[in-house]
């Protein structure tokens, strides 16, 4: 546990050194956030709400999703794949610790840094420029914190799994990119999932993707209440476990392949 914390702390520290990248990221995220607000406002027109979501809720949705792009690495994360290709994986396998935990700890540091340096400023900027809503009760805030933490774990495992493709093919970039495009749509990042047809939402709910963003958004907006929140959090937890096991199994197969066929 101590080791996990130390790795995460160093990773957090490393993120802080990339100041220019952070500012660039902030500006970009906010700029596209404003664009998305404009599009949604046009889309709403004179309607007060669409599929049960008010315009104010929709604007909050764009702010929240823009804010957590960095936290969840929604637009791409290729570190494990790259370390397989550069051979750095070999020096990491020579360290006496689990490879999945090794990366998870470092990703936690990265995620927390992104939360502080990107998510908070963007939400603040939104609060200044747009009419947004906030969670209204302590319970809702608590649920939000738990949902955010679980969302990060699911996102990490999905990204880690996609990256493991690097063990099997010398060019997994296409595959990993495809996984991120899926995330873009199926998490409910592009549009709140409730804007999509029912059958599509039901399909999405069979995958872990909606639990990365949609759950967080619905808790934030207060769409989910009481028992629904509990069900959502438990579903998230279920995916954390399933994906964690999947990561370990596939990682083991990948390492076996590496050590048998050579890097």
């Amino acid at each position, binding site marked *: 546990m101590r080791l996990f914390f130390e790795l995460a702390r160093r990773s957090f520290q490393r993120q802080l050194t990339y100041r220019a990248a952070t500012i660039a990221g902030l500006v970009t995220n906010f700029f596209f956030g404003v664009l998305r607000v404009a599009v949604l406002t046009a889309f709403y027109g004179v309607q007060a709400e669409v599929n049960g979501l008010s315009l104010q809720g929709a604007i909050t949705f764009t702010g929240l999703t823009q804010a957590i792009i960095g936290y969840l690495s929604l637009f791409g994360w290729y570190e494990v794949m790259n370390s397989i290709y550069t051979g750095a994986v070999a020096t990491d*396998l020579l360290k006496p610790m689990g490879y999945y935990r090794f990366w998870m700890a470092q990703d936690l540091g990265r995620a927390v840094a992104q939360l502080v340096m990107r998510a908070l400023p963007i939400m603040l900027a939104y609060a200044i420029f747009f009419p947004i809503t906030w969670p209204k009760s302590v319970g809702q805030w608590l649920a939000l914190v738990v949902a955010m933490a679980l969302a990060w774990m699911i996102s990490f495992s999905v990204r880690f799994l996609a990256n493991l493709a690097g063990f099997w093919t010398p060019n997994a970039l296409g595959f990993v990119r495809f996984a991120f495009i899926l995330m873009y749509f199926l998490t409910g990042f592009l549009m709140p999932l409730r804007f999509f047809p029912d059958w599509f939402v039901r399909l999405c709910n069979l995958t872990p993707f909606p639990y990365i963003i949609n759950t967080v958004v619905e808790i934030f907006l207060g769409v989910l209440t009481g028992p629904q929140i509990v069900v959502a959090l438990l579903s998230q937890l279920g995916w954390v476990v399933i994906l964690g096991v999947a990561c370990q199994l596939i990682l083991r197969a990948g390492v076996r392949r590496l050590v048998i*066929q050579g890097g």
Partner: protein
Amino acid sequence: MTPIIRVHHLHKHFRLTRNRHGLLGAVRGLIAPEYRTVRAVDGISFDLARGELVGYLGPNGAGKSTTIKMLAGLLVPTSGEIVVNGHVPWRERQAYVARIGAVFGQRTTLWWDLPVSESLDLLQHIYKIPAQQFQRNLDEFRQLLGLDAFINTPVRALSLGQRMRADLCAALLHDPDLLFLDEPTIGLDVVAKERIRQFIQHVNRVRGTTVILTTHDLSDVEKLCERVMIIDHGRLLYDGKLEFLREKFGGKRQLVVDFAENYSDAPVDGAEIAGRDGNRVTYEFERRVIAASELIGRLSSQYRINDLEVREPDIESTIRRIYEEKLLENASDAAN
């Protein structure tokens, strides 16, 4: 005493797809790929005693790195046996790697964008090194490797020599029994090489760490190793004392003589004149034909001599001869 490493009939074969020429070839390759087998390591056996420092030599592609990777548990042998410290390296990876240290010259185990000291702190936690032991080792290595000048610099900003020193320190903080060094001096200047060699020697002699060193640089081997193993095409060509290798395959030794007067010719039995420059004459002779003392005796009985010097063939040309002329293969054929 049981050896720290026992390697028995070790093989590693890789299956590679054969690329065919042209579009048609590419299509055929897609439908019915053709494979060829590369025997990177082809039947190697050796033992290593605790506390040895062994040089593992061979040209590019000889199978050195493949062997080291198998010893480190990063590759599984196709067949054969490796036992290191009672462990089979590729099983129970975490337990095994906690007891070894490794430096791969081309790569770093440190975090690219962290200061060296932070990377070392992380390794303390990863290897669960007790604080006291960690501090003692760190103090020792900082001094020996001169780390203080750059210990707060991020690894990405280090020179190659500095990075290598940091990596050596990182590999030894947990007091491993065994240290694998794959090309630790590659690309370094003479001063940096010398510093690293002295450190390796210290680690082996003072701390008693067993070291396997692969290198291209024969001066590494000459300065550090008593025992060398030479590998080519996946086979062990030679395993024994460096001294003996030189004796057996060293080629011609030279005797440089400064005569007291200018002889128009100065022949002597058992040696040939290879060059002359005023009163200085260089003779070449073979170890198995005549001993240096004998030759000097003959010369001094015939001529007046001011000074003389025996020159041994350097190890580099010896080993080059071994590869080029396949001396060892012939030698082992003859032995069979």
